[in-house]
């Protein structure tokens, strides 16, 4: 009996000791991330049968468990992955948002300054200082495009850098997880009844949650407590004790962009970035495709649109040297930076040349041009929709779609060959001012009109409007090519009656001769006037003048080259008018409007992400509170446990003392 008493006392002592140790472990790990509160599971030892029945044998400590609730922990992990995703997205887009916030030094004032200078030339076309000011402010406008684009490129480089370091981090976590898996496996927790290595489990769970913060993963739990971890669409990251590594590799379509690949020995297989969701990596990739690419493209579209439309107007004008205007801006169809990039895996020999045909139709999207089944097809990458192309892809008849003009050259393509087309990505980087000579600003219109001095009627002729001066279009018929300088021939519109007129070659004003072919007896509407297009019958005229009023027979009107028309600011006025003319986005908005579209889009996206991010951090906080209230350490509770087990220990000690006293009592019987 004495032995039994001792044993019970010792079991109590042991239990209290376990209790104290576990409590102290809890207290020590109160701040350890991923730690789950542990507690001892003690049961009364099975009684020993005696005549009096079962006599208790003290206490057994069966198990030390951790307060782990798989549901709660999973919830926290998911919320955490989402929160990290949004946090990263929000931080990144915040950079663009802040960049656009500065209204005093951004693109907007530079644009306004430039057009103020253009107006200066329009009101004072002969003034060289005004012309110089237009070139200078054009240069500062270009500089502000460059600054914005540079900043976006820095952000893009930052994303690439972060992708690389996150991939490294993910690899390191998956290796650690594989090692923990090995240890858990070695600890042999397979069959039930065996004790669980709580702290290894905590480490394992903590690693999984760390991994989840980097990128969303899915976990399958094996019977022996080993975790298998998968990424994206089921790519294994950790299988038992084996880990697989990821790599940041340049995209096959665009070598400037790093994407995440799966490494098999020496080979890499790119992982579809849309399948990498959640976590910081997911946030970065989503930011890049949803915000950064569109922002840089939008900015590029303004630059390309400005350059294309402004240059087109320059070409319709005449400079101080009586020549057609030269390009003011450079870089829209720069050959040094092609707008199409062949895929690394192309096997055919085809090449593409992409130029901007109609800037008004440009979108801010990227495209993929793919060869398959004997034909080329174009897909809008942003919307994932096919885009129909007209033309045959040859120089004479290029593919035309969304303002682009695509010519296929080189050798034969193979099935599956593709090209990435980024029409506007580098627009803001490549724009420049190509004009340096103030005299070459085309402020004047190349034609001037006149009313015959001897006219008896009240007929009037408008200033005229020029549509085409190019040597490829109808301008070739009307103007001396390639630089202008004369009308070929100068025209005389002569009325043969009050309602009909002839157009004559006025090269010799003393004796006008018929045009070849002759243009005679054209009808004239004395009520509404008549627009005369030249060349007559051309689909797009080189220029038009409007006749109005009531001319009489033999009344004449002249159209001549505007030689030495230095005080004429008509073309500069048209250039200044471009500021408010809706030339972009299918002719719906002007340059500043397109920029405010960009600002609005980024602002909205930023706001959306910020609000969701805030909401998500509250969700995370709530799930964390729930999980922590179950698994976390409450120091007051532990303090109480400390006292509880201390007292239990003291009581068990007392028991041994009692047993000892009892034994002494027996011994003292003499």
């Amino acid at each position, binding site marked *: 009996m004495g032995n039994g008493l001792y044993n019970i006392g010792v079991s109590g002592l042991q239990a209290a000791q376990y209790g104290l140790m576990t409590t102290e472990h809890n207290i020590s790990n*109160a701040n350890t991330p991923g730690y789950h509160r542990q507690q001892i599971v003690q049961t009364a030892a099975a009684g020993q049968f005696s005549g009096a029945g079962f006599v208790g044998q003290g206490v057994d400590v069966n198990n030390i468990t951790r307060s782990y609730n798989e549901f709660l922990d999973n919830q926290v992990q998911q919320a955490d992955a989402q929160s990290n995703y949004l946090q990263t997205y929000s931080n990144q887009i915040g950079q663009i*948002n802040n960049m*656009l*916030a500065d*209204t005093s030094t951004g693109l*907007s004032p530079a644009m*306004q300054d430039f*057009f*103020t200078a253009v*107006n200066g030339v*329009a*009101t*004072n*076309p*002969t*003034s060289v200082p005004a012309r110089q000011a237009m070139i200078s402010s054009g240069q500062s406008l270009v500089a502000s495009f460059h600054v914005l684009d540079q900043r976006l490129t820095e952000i893009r480089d930052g994303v690439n850098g972060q992708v690389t370091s996150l991939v490294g981090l993910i690899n390191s976590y998956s290796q650690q997880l594989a090692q923990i898996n090995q240890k858990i496996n070695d600890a042999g927790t397979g069959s039930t009844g065996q004790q669980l290595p709580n702290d290894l489990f905590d480490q394992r769970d903590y690693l999984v949650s760390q991994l989840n913060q980097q990128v969303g993963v899915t976990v399958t739990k094996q019977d022996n407590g080993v975790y298998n971890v998968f990424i994206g669409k089921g790519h294994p990251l950790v299988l038992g004790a084996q880990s697989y590594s990821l790599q940041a590799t340049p995209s096959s379509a665009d070598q400037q962009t790093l994407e995440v690949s799966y490494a098999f020995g020496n080979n890499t297989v790119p992982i579809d970035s849309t399948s990498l969701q959640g976590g910081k990596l997911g946030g970065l990739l989503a930011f890049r495709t949803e915000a950064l690419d569109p922002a840089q493209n939008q900015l590029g579209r303004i630059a390309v649109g400005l350059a294309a439309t402004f240059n087109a107007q320059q070409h319709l004008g005449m400079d101080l040297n009586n020549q057609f205007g030269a390009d003011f801006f450079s870089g829209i169809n720069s050959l040094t930076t092609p707008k199409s990039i062949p895929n690394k895996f192309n096997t055919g020999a085809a090449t593409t040349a992409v130029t901007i045909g109609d800037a008004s139709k440009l979108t801010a999207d990227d495209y993929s041009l793919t060869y398959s089944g004997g034909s080329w097809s174009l897909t809008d990458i942003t919307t994932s929709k096919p885009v129909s192309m007209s033309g045959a892809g040859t120089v004479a008849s290029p593919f035309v779609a969304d303002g682009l003009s695509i010519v296929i050259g080189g050798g034969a393509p193979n099935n599956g060959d593709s090209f990435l087309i980024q029409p506007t990505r580098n627009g803001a980087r490549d724009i420049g001012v190509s004009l340096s000579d103030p005299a070459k600003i085309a402020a*004047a219109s190349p034609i*001037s009109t006149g*009313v015959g*001095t001897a006219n*008896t009627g009240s007929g009037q002729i408008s*200033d005229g409007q020029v549509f085409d001066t190019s040597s490829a279009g109808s301008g070739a018929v009307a103007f001396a090519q390639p630089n202008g300088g004369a009308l070929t021939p100068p025209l005389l519109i002569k009325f043969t009656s*009050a309602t009909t007129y002839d157009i004559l070659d006025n090269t010799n004003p003393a004796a006008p001769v018929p045009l070849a072919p002759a243009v005679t007896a054209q009808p004239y509407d004395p009520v509404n006037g008549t627009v005369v297009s030249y060349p007559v019958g051309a689909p797009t005229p080189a220029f038009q003048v409007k006749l109005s009023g009531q001319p*009489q027979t033999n009344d004449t009107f002249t159209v*001549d080259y*505007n030689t*030495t*028309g*230095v*005080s004429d*600011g*008509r073309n500069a*006025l048209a250039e*200044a*008018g471009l*500021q*408010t003319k809706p030339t972009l986005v299918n002719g719906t908005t002007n340059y500043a*409007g397109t*920029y*405010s579209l960009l*600002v*609005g889009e*980024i*602002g*909205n996206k*930023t*706001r959306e992400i910020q609000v969701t991010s805030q909401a998500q951090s509250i969700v995370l*906080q709530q799930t*964390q*509170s729930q999980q*922590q*209230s179950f698994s*976390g*350490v*409450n*120091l*007051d*509770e532990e*303090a109480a446990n*400390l006292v509880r087990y201390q007292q239990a220990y003291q009581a068990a000690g007392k028991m041994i003392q009692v047993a000892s006293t009892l034994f002494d009592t027996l011994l003292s019987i003499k």
Partner: protein
Amino acid sequence: MRISSNLLFDLGVSAMQKLQSDMMTTQQKVSSGKRILTPADDPVAASQVLNVSQSMSANAQYGTNDDYASSAMNLEDTTLASVGQVVQDIKTQLIYAGNGSLTNANRQALAEEVKGQFQQLLGLANTKDGNGLYLFSGYKGTTQPFTETSLGAQYWGDQGQRLAQIGPSRQVAVSDSGHDVFERVKTGNGVFVTGAAGGNTGTGVISQGTVVDQTKWSAAGNSKDYKVVFAVDNSGLLPVTTYDIIDNTTGNSMITGNPSAAVAGPTGGPRFPRTYTAGDAIEFKQLPTDPGPLPPAWDLGVSISVDGAPTGSPTIGASPPTGVDTFTVKASTSESLFATIKQAIDAMNTPINNATDSATFSNKLNSAIASLTNGLDNILTVRGGLGARMKEVDAVKANGENLNQLYTQQISQLQDLDYAKAISDLTQQQMQLDAAQKSFLKVTGLSLFNYIGG
């Protein structure tokens, strides 16, 4: 519910961080005076501010353009006023020159005076603006518009009008070309012009005529090229002067409808269909008194008169009649003011030796005076148009200033901070943070360990 001690700290800290970041944002708003710090704060308003500020900047530019337009037009207006004065002076001299009591020498002296005024006018036509550009040369601002020639002046400019953008959709011409001011002066009475043929031997002086019905003159089919020929029948007791109206394009008499030819009168002398009375109207229409057979009724809607004694002795039956005093009636054309003045000077320099010379001089002088009157009208018309445009620019400018205020207001409404609200927010946030900090200390200070042992 059990609370994780760790979480207690985390939650407390994150709450305080959020409050601090809110306070910082409010403080930034207060210090910048703006409600929108980044586009994300209010994406719609942020992009609207950009649009409005662009409109505002364009509007400011229109204001500058308005000032430019006003000053350019003011200069032109002043110049045109001087031009009008000089032309008026010349006209006065010409009217004085018509005074029959003047001698040849008197007229030559007057001619010298008018020559001086011609030079003055040429100077005004070649006026330069503040930038050294010619005012009246159209687009060819650096080309001198007028140079003197023996016939008047040659115009080297073009007909372009320089433009200024004074509003979003309004361009206004800030100049008028020399062509419009000096070169497009209607001759005669503005509708038709009368003249005397060089070989007239009588003393007939033709009037500028009057337009009775403009639509009839403008009607299709009117050749607008006529002449009135005279015959004097001296075979009777008293000379009878008759005339015919001939359409130059057909050679037919308008009155008879047949090729014009003199017929023998009762006494055998040559006669035309209508009888002439000095100073009476010569109406260009069918009269009931016209001798038959009458052609279809005709009416050109104009009438002229001839004073003095025209003469003529056509051969009877010869068509076209020859040896007759001829006066022309044609559609008005445009003439250079300088040419008109030059012709008047030439006329004044031509000595008058007999009645025929005197009639020739009168005819030339009359047409010059008529042209000058038209020139003066033309200058007034150009000035009138200019004045209307100046008024428009003023109106647009005033409107632009109102718009500017409106834009400023709009931008302010979009992005300016409501200070009262911001300050009250700040105070509230400050209180909240204060409370959070104090309560955090209280809550985290509680621990059972404080009471164990000791």
